[in-house]
């Protein structure tokens, strides 16, 4: 089958997160084992139980957007656009027009990104203060496709473009679909990823109420782990049909080779070993990778008791004896759980691990849990050859997505 042979290159990466406002700063910090989780600074915490998060600090939107544009952009779209400029700046330093693409084959597939800060402040104005003065751009700022739309507008991408919604797997599903659409010939060039800026008092309190937040640190896979810590940010990947990227001499970070999806069809929040296993299996099968080709897994690794135990069991079920040879780490230990952006930030880490042969660590790891007995790269990054890597996302709602990346050769 001819179209099955089309390959897909990752030619641009961009990010905004607690550990940096561009992908270069982010990757230096991840490899350095820096932790972006700190006492919450951007919002009042007196009504919150959990008072730590991985916030993006020192981000002044006026540094990136002019005063006429800004009223239209919720922080979610601001992050998305800044990360997109970072990624597209790498992929197309002379501008997208110079790539000679068909605009109808260039699109944006992006994780749904609600304008949560706009929702929060509008509700406060309307219900809290009893004012009818809602900002006229409230609706376009809130809509979950706003980040996808703004990227398409800014870069003139006129091909198939839309937003995906699967909670914490949204951006992983977006990246996987963008990859499959290029492989199938529906797109030649895709800007994909996710963005999240939902650290409002009301939203953090809602997570508090679910009793999954850690009171202090995020310690994935560690025996003393106590839950997840929320974060915010965005990450963008530029995907491109392989021959196009090669012919124009693009710098290729890695090849995206596999995407697997599954649904637990069980509990709405509790993870499921069979569902996770099925998604990992599907990604490996889609990629045509042997188990021993994979050297690194960027885990979903939320730091909750259930997820980390379940994910470990799924990896052992898929990889068998090779599971012990894998480096498995959770960058959520440094970036927090960035929800709709989480999968994209972690995909960026997986791509760079393959490019640079280094596995970022799981920081905050302190004690072995007999139910989590893999190599979690505790606290210090490790340099070792990484031929292929996976990035796992297992979302609330039981919707799972796994990506596979291979060294560009």
């Amino acid at each position, binding site marked *: 089958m001819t179209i099955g042979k089309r390959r897909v290159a990752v030619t641009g990466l961009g990010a905004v997160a607690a550990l940096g406002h561009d992908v270069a700063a982010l990757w230096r910090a991840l490899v350095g084992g820096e932790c972006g989780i700190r006492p919450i600074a951007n919002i009042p915490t007196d009504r919150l139980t959990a008072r730590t998060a991985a916030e993006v600090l020192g981000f002044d939107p006026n540094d990136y957007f*002019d*005063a*006429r544009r800004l*009223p*239209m952009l919720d922080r979610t779209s601001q992050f998305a656009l800044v990360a997109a400029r970072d990624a597209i700046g790498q992929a197309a330093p002379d501008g997208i027009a110079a790539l000679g693409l068909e605009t109808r084959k260039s699109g944006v597939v992006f994780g749904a990104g609600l304008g949560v800060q706009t929702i929060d402040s509008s509700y406060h104005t309307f219900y809290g203060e009893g004012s009818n*003065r809602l*900002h*006229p*751009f409230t609706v376009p700022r809130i809509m979950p496709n706003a980040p996808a739309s703004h990227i398409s507008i800014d870069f003139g991408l006129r091909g198939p473009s839309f937003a995906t919604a699967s909670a914490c797997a949204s951006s992983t599903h977006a990246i996987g679909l963008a990859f499959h659409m290029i492989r199938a010939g529906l797109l030649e060039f895709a800007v994909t990823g996710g963005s999240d800026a939902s650290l409002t008092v009301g939203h953090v309190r809602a997570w508090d109420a679910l009793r999954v937040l850690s009171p202090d640190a995020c310690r994935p896979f560690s025996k003393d782990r106590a839950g997840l810590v929320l974060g915010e940010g965005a990450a963008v990947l530029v995907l491109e049909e392989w021959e196009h990227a090669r012919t124009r001499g693009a710098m290729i970070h890695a090849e995206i080779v596999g995407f697997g999806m599954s649904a637990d069809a069980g509990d709405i929040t509790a993870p499921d070993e069979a569902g996770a296993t099925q998604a990992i299996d599907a990604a490996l099968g889609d990629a045509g990778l042997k188990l021993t080709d994979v050297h690194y897994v960027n885990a979903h690794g939320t730091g909750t008791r259930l997820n980390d135990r379940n994910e470990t069991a799924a990896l052992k079920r898929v990889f068998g004896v090779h599971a012990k040879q894998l480096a498995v780490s959770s960058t959520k230990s440094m970036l927090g759980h960035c929800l709709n952006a989480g999968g994209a930030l972690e995909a960026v880490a997986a791509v760079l691990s393959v490019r640079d042969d280094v596995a970022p660590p799981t920081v905050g790891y302190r004690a072995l849990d007999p139910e989590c007995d893999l190599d979690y790269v505790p606290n210090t990054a490790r340099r070792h050859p990484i031929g292929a890597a996976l990035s796992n996302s297992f979302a609330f709602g039981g919707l799972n997505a796994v990506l596979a990346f291979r060294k560009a050769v």
Partner: protein
Amino acid sequence: MDSPTAPLPAASTDPRIDTILDIVARETKIDRDRLQLDARTNDLGIGSLDLTLVVFEIESHFRIELPFALEPPTDKSMTVGTLVDQVLQVLEARTNKSVGG
């Protein structure tokens, strides 16, 4: 060019017009000197979303509600004067209502 509605007082005689034009300039980032009453909003590059924002800010400032369907914002004949006139009409109506008791 004449405004399509009632004649307007000269800007110098009504400080409210200055206030309205200040708001338009602030929200659209258009040079205040270009906001002549006979200038067409279309020619100034004021789009429908800009106008929505301008109306929102004017409403907030004067604590009024503008029945803004009076003249579709995309109407090519829309001028700065049309907008000013509509605001003044609402303000006058409010004044008369409060005087009349």
